C-alpha cells in the first residue's frame, strides 16, 4: 500500500514537473554585445503562419465544433488577412542591433528550427536544438530568431461559451543564441491581444477586429524590439523626431508603417 502511494506520488511529481523543462525567460543584457570586436549577429525568422482563429478553452470535440461553427465567418475573414507586415520585424531588429554597435545581417531564408539536430549537451539556458552549424554557414557568432507561432484572432472559451470577445492575436517567441556555446542570451515568449475599438461583430469585413489585428502586429513588433532599443532611447529622443523608423516602440505620431 505504502509503495503504491509512493509510486503515485512519484508519478504525480513527474507529471507536474513536466513543465519544469520549459525554457525560462532570459532577459537581454546590453553587456552581451560588448566586446573588443563587434558581434556578428544573424537575424532570422521562421516561416510566418497564415492568420487563423483560435479558441482556447473549447476543449471537448463538441465544444470545438460549436465554437468553430459559431465563428465561421470570422475564421473565413481571418484567412483573408496577411501577416506579411510581421516580416519587417527582422529588418527592424537588425537596425536596432546595428545602432547598438553590432554587425547585424538579415538572413532572408526562413529558418526551420525543427530541422536542426538536437543539442548534444543540456544545462541552464542551453538550446534544445543545435544551432552551432549556422556559425560557419552564415559567418555569424550569434543568431537572433523570431518564431511566430500563431497569428489571427483569439477567442477564449469555457467549454461551449466564449469568455471574451474575439481579439487580434499574435503568439511569438524571440531568442538570441550564442552559436559558440549554443546557449540563449535572450529568450522572450510573447502573447499580444488587442480588442476591437467598439463593436466587433461586423461581418463580413469585421473592420474593428481587422484594425485590432493590425494593432496586434504593431504591438508585437514593439515588444520584440523593446529590449534592443531601450538603452538607446535617450539618444533617439534627443534627435529630431522622424517618421521613417516606425519600428521603435515609442514611434512618432501619425506615421504610416505599412509602406
Amino acid at each position, binding site marked *: 500500500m505504502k509503495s503504491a502511494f509512493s509510486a503515485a506520488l512519484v508519478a504525480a511529481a513527474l507529471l507536474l514537473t513536466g513543465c519544469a523543462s520549459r525554457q525560462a525567460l532570459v532577459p537581454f543584457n546590453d553587456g552581451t554585445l560588448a566586446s573588443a570586436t563587434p558581434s556578428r549577429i544573424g537575424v532570422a525568422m521562421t516561416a510566418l503562419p497564415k492568420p487563423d482563429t483560435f479558441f482556447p478553452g473549447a476543449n471537448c470535440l463538441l465544444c470545438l465544433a460549436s465554437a468553430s461553427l459559431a465563428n465561421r465567418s470570422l475564421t473565413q475573414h481571418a484567412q483573408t488577412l496577411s501577416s506579411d507586415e510581421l516580416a519587417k520585424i527582422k529588418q527592424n531588429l537588425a537596425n536596432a542591433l546595428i545602432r547598438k554597435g553590432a554587425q547585424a545581417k538579415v538572413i532572408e531564408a526562413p529558418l526551420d528550427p525543427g530541422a536542426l539536430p538536437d543539442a548534444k549537451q543540456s544545462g541552464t539556458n542551453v538550446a534544445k536544438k543545435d544551432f552551432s552549424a549556422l556559425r560557419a554557414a552564415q559567418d555569424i557568432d550569434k543568431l537572433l530568431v523570431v518564431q511566430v507561432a500563431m497569428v489571427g484572432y483569439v477567442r477564449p472559451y*469555457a*467549454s461551449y461559451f466564449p469568455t471574451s470577445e474575439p481579439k487580434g492575436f499574435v503568439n511569438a517567441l524571440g531568442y538570441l543564441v550564442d552559436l559558440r556555446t549554443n546557449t540563449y542570451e535572450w529568450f522572450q515568449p510573447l502573447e499580444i491581444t488587442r480588442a476591437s475599438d467598439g463593436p466587433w461583430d461586423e461581418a463580413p469585413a469585421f473592420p474593428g477586429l481587422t484594425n485590432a489585428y493590425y494593432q496586434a502586429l504593431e504591438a508585437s513588433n514593439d515588444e520584440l524590439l523593446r529590449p534592443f532599443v531601450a538603452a538607446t532611447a535617450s539618444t533617439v529622443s534627443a534627435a529630431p523626431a522622424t517618421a521613417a523608423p516606425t519600428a521603435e516602440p515609442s514611434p512618432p505620431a501619425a506615421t504610416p*508603417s505599412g509602406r
Partner: protein
Amino acid sequence: MAGHNKCGVMWVQRMLGVAASRVRTTQWVSALAALALLPLVQHAQAQDESAATQQTPAQVATVPVPAANWSLALPPTDSVRFKGMAERDKAGIGGAAMAYPINTGAIFLAAVLVHGALNEATKSAQKSDLQKAADRVLQPYEPVLSKYTHHDLVAALAEQPVPAGSQQARWHVQSDPVFSLTPDETAFVLENDITVREAGPQGVIRYQGVVKVVAAATPQADPRHHWMANDGAPLKAETGALFLESIALAVDSAAQRWPTVAAKPQTYRYLEGTASRAERASLVAARCPQIVLRTLRNTLLSVPADSMHEPCGGTAPVTASASDGPGTP
C-alpha cells in the same frame, strides 16, 4: 437514477449559487428592476426621441453673428458627456473546461444554460467594472464637468453655428459628442456621432458616423492643474476646439471636399496622450496640426501630427488611389 438526477439538480443549484455570489446582489436587483421598468423606459425614450425631433430647432444654438454655414442640434441631455478610457485588451474572464452533469438530457441542458447565463453575467459585470475603473480619472474634474453644459460647449466655439432654417444654413448637423480623458490626463479625445444633412425639410444625409478627434498631449508638467485652472477654461477651450474640428471634418466630408475612393489602408502610428496607438486607415488630408485618416469603418479620425517628418503645411487632399489592400472593408 434518482440519485443521479438529484446530483445534477444540486450541480445546477450550486452553479446558481456561484452565479449569485459572483454577480453582485445589486446587479441582480438592477436587472430585475430594469426588466420590470422596461416598458416605462421605452415609453420615456420614445417621448425623448419625439421631443428631440420636435425640439431640434429650439436646441440649435442661436448666435447673432454667423460665420458658418451649418446649424447644430445636440442631444437633449444638458451636460457634456465625459468618460475614462477602459483598457479592454486584457478583458475576459478566462477560459476553463467545465464538467457538466450528463445523467439526463434535461439536467445537462439546464447545466449548460446556467453556465451560459453565469458566463454572460460575469462578462457584463467585468465590462462595467472596467469602465467604472477608467472613469475614476475624471473624479478630480467633477467640479468643472458637473457644470459643463452643451450650451457652454457651443457658446465657446470659435466658429458659431447658424440658426436652423436660416438662409446661410447649407447643412444641418446632428451631434452626440462624448469626450474621453487619457489615463495620463494629458489629452482629450472626442468621439462625436455626427449626421450631416442638407438643410431643408427633406435634407439628404451626406455624412453619418463617428468622427474621432485626438488632441495633442499638453506639454504641461501638471496636466490636471493646467486643465482645471481658471474654472476649467483650458479644458473647455480644448474640448471646444475638438468639437469644432469634428464638425468641420464631417461637413467637409459631406461637401465631398475629399476623395471618396480611399487610398490603400496602411497602419498609422500616433500618440494618444503619451501612449502609442496604431490605426489601420487611409490618409485623407493634412489639416495641420492634425492628420485626417479614414478608418476601416469608413469614419474619420483626426490625430496629432506634431512629430510628422513630412511637411504638414497644406490642407490639400492627398492623391487617392484604388483600395486593394487587405483589411479593406
